[in-house]
């Protein structure tokens, strides 16, 4: 495995090459800066790069077949970090009456449902990464008092739109799937984009808006994507 250090903008990035099959980028600096680099790499649509995956602490680049490490490094060096537009903010309406695991969560956190909702609505979340399924959002920024263990037995079916807590993350299920997180509510807006590029990216800011069951039904009928809802 070859390893090199690279200066991108003002961030020192460690680049490790795994036989030209994939390349991993890590950095000791703020993970937000790594997300920004990930976004630049994706948006630059470089010929040398087949695919980019951005996880919380690491970026994975899949080079096109036959692209050597040196060519890839040169190509990565051309990205212009300041060209990336500012991080966007999106609003996520959540109806907390539709949560299924309030009882367990109240017990684990030693807080009432009302104070938990209060805390969540005041918090600013960041989309830390994507990955479980398309449309599933991993949000960080949740107060530590709400971090909790996952369900001991995962559910075989979680409805799309479910908002749930797992470990330190608040998660949004864009598609129906199995899942082992504590359900605390549901959003009427869509986070799974099948035809267009999603409006979010790792690094987006997400704010929660608590809504009533009535508003939930009204918004649901409008069939909106998350970016079409403005709080």
């Amino acid at each position, binding site marked *: 495995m070859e390893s090199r250090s690279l200066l991108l903008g003002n961030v020192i990035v460690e680049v490790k090459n795994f*036989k030209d*099959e994939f390349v*991993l980028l890590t950095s000791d600096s703020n993970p937000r800066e790594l997300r920004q680099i990930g976004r630049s790499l994706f948006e630059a649509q470089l010929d040398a790069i087949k695919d980019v995956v951005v996880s919380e602490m690491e970026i994975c680049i899949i080079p096109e077949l036959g692209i050597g490490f040196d060519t890839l490094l040169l190509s990565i060096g051309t990205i212009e970090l300041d060209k990336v537009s500012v991080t966007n903010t999106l609003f996520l309406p959540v109806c907390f009456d539709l949560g299924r695991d309030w009882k367990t969560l109240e017990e684990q956190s030693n807080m009432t449902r009302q104070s938990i909702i209060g805390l969540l609505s005041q918090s600013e979340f960041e989309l830390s990464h*994507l990955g479980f*399924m398309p449309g599933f959002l991993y949000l960080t920024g949740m107060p530590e008092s709400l971090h909790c263990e996952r369900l001991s037995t995962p559910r075989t079916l979680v409805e799309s739109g479910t908002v749930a807590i797992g470990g330190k993350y608040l998660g949004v299920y864009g598609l129906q799937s199995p899942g082992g997180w504590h359900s605390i509510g549901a959003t009427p807006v869509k986070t799974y984009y099948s035809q267009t590029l999603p409006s979010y990216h790792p690094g987006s800011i997400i704010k929660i808006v608590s809504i009533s069951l009535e508003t939930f039904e009204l918004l649901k009928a409008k069939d909106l994507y998350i970016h079409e809802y403005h709080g």
Partner: protein
Amino acid sequence: MYTILVQASNNRASYYAFPQSGPMDFKSYKMANLVVGNPVQSPALECTGTAPTIRFNTQATLAVSGADMQWTINGKTIPMHTSIHCKKDDILSGKNTIYGFRSYIAIRGNSLESMVSKHAVYPTPIKPKEILSWQDSETSHPHVSLHPITIKKTISFLAGPEYSFLDLNSQSVFSTEEYEITSKSNRIGARLDGPILRATKQLVTSRPIIPGIIQLPPDGKPIVCLQDCQTTGGYPRIGFITREQLDYFNQIPHRQKVMFKHID
């Protein structure tokens, strides 16, 4: 029977957590398309384990590659890796695979599609009676190829980012013992059964994964991530199989044994 429509894509959708997807044996998929004169990355059918039976409602030019499923047209054996013309009402069929695990059927023309699975995130199996459509193209120039697949019993792997998490004994066990590709495997991952491997550490946050990565869950039984795998995972990535070797790996039938050879 498990037959799906596959297409290799260049859409860079992993950034948004879409699985890479596409054919499990890229080489065979590409060959079927080339033989009928299609662009390399045209849609084709991927048949796993057993051949489907397909009736043609119109004439077609097709080629079959990959696993040998004893292919026939109207009951008569047909050669593989060769462009074949069939008439309206001809029936393409076969049996269980006798060599390899996945066959590819390419049909000359460009937009082979199934309305049923068009918008699915994961490839959905073609259902009995489902109708597929395509646009024939007369202008293509077929290639001739006579290279059948080779089945390997030993697959090379390289050390993954968390290879050092394995204890020394497990490092040597994984490259000297046999592992079975269990029947719980699918296009998302190959679940291996064999001597238990031990990791001395676990990952704190989830990391990117791609097809070919070998993950080690806490139960000590490795999983090879395959074409439909998710884009991040939380288990140590102890090794990886190159794209070239993955084509061979994906032609080994379930319930068969495989050896992994550590290369640098």
